[in-house]
């Protein structure tokens, strides 16, 4: 099921500099949404910005869902000005969520910066279905950008903090932290964050024989597979195509399929 609904903004708070949490009401979308899926958010009613903005479901509640986003440019800046009581048009859920595999031994979430957005919903689902909450590596530039740590702890997760400037946790890169946790063939790693963080994390997992899923970003117009704008190059052909669409073939991909070099060049990240 896919919906386009005007959802009421229930709460909207600045949680760190330039980072906002917005709770929206929609029982339909909440019922249909899976961790790792995303929605397309209309940031303003008028047609500039023209396109919706993709945002993943950060938390999924009984009566709605929560977005967690960073102000990057014009669109998210305008979104941040909306206030509770107003409505916001949401299209979703879209894309493929994270597969939940209780049979695996170990689940490790590796999150960098705003890449954390999708993980509270995933952590809750894993905690509920796998018996054991996932381990979480939470990395960010600086202390105040380490988001959702308490939320993960409240779900029972062990949280390993890392910052680039050493202001909290370890002064280390996320991939290095993963290496030290000693992943193995029975480990499933879920990574989301800057491109370089995902590619290095994928490399660490590969060397250890662990599986690694990444959640990718790309410029999107439709979110529905129609515009062919959001493609990334895959190492393996998918239905005869070298180009896979982040919106419908992803956003969650097996890291081993992604041509990281091509992707880095394209998005310059």
């Amino acid at each position, binding site marked *: 099921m*896919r919906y*386009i609904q005007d959802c009421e903004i229930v709460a909207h708070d600045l949680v760190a500099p330039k980072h906002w949490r917005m709770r929206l009401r929609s029982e339909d979308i909440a019922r249909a949404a899976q961790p790792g899926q995303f929605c397309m958010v*209309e940031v303003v009613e008028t*047609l*500039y*910005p*023209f*396109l*919706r903005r993709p945002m993943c479901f950060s938390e999924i509640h009984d009566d709605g869902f929560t977005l967690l986003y960073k102000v990057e440019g014009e669109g998210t800046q305008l979104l941040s000005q909306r206030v509770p009581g107003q409505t916001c048009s949401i*299209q979703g859920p879209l894309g493929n969520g994270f597969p939940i595999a209780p049979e695996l031994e170990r689940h490790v979430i590796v999150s960098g910066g705003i890449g954390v957005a999708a993980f509270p919903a995933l952590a809750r689902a894993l905690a509920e279905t796998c018996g054991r909450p996932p381990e979480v590596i939470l990395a960010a530039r600086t202390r105040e950008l380490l988001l959702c740590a308490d939320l993960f702890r409240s779900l029972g997760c062990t949280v390993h903090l890392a910052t680039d400037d050493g202001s909290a946790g370890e002064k280390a890169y996320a991939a290095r932290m993963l290496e030290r946790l000693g992943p193995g063939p029975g480990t499933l790693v879920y990574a989301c964050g800057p491109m370089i963080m995902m590619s290095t994390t994928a490399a660490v997992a590969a060397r250890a024989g662990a599986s690694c899923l990444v959640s990718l970003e*790309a*410029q*999107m*117009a*439709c979110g*529905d*597979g*129609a*515009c*062919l*704008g*959001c*493609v*990334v*190059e895959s190492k393996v052909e998918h239905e*005869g*195509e*070298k*180009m896979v669409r982040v919106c419908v073939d992803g956003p969650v991909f097996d890291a081993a399929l992604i041509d990281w070099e*091509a992707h880095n060049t*394209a*998005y*310059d990240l």
Partner: protein
Amino acid sequence: MKNPVTVASGTFGYGEEFDRYFDVSLLGAVTTKSISLKPRAGNKPPRLVETPAGLLNAIGLQNVGIDRFLSQKAPYLRTRNATIIANIYGHSPEEYAELARRLEAEGAADAIEANLSCPNVHDARTAKGAVLVSQSCEAITVYTQAIRDATRLPLYIKLTPNVMNIQEPALAAEAAGADGVCLINTLLGMAINPETRKPRLANIVGGLSGPAIRPVAVKMVWDAARVLRIPIIGTGGISGAASAIEFLLAGATAVSVGSMSFRRPDTALRVVEGIAEYLKRHQIADVNQLIGAMQA
């Protein structure tokens, strides 16, 4: 067509992508993504950049190729009872003719739209002079005749706005046997990221679409309508019934909704409904009374 509303090629996939939002058989027709003989991978990403009230794209005609179109995409649309305008793209008059022939032979299209105007399949750095087929009246004549000879299906020629006077290519298409023209394809454009100093599209240049270009498109439809006897499908920045009616008043016989389907997947259906509501409110019996009915 049961109503004068279709969707613009490349903005509605193969129709199936939108089927989950509404019943696509309610549209006058579904116009599909440009199909070539061989599947095409298209350009490298980034392929999209948003601009003020618009969108630049350089998809590069990624498509599944005629074989998969005939085996999967068209049959699916048929199960949905959609009227199909199949948009085609080739590298020579012969390729276009071959595509048209196969579509007709397999009953996979109710009409053909020949894209003689895609801005994203040439290297912008070296291009000089006429680089799109529809920038040359001679080329339009040759291509249109070749396709005309290959099919009896209604044939629409899709033209580029990047010309000095749209009346010339439109008349060339008419003279060569086209049943109609589609105006407009995207306007050439580009954008640069000042922070990285790189072009925002891997292809550097792309095609501009969306509400931003609507005034340009309406003007071109009006210009063409004053000299053509064949119908015009008006396209460019339609965002709802009001802007669709603008095109009809300027002289378009039908309209296609393009990029706005990205913002609201059900825009084309809303346009169908909005036109019906408008006709009722203004007590107009037949939508054809609106065509070219601007009161200048």
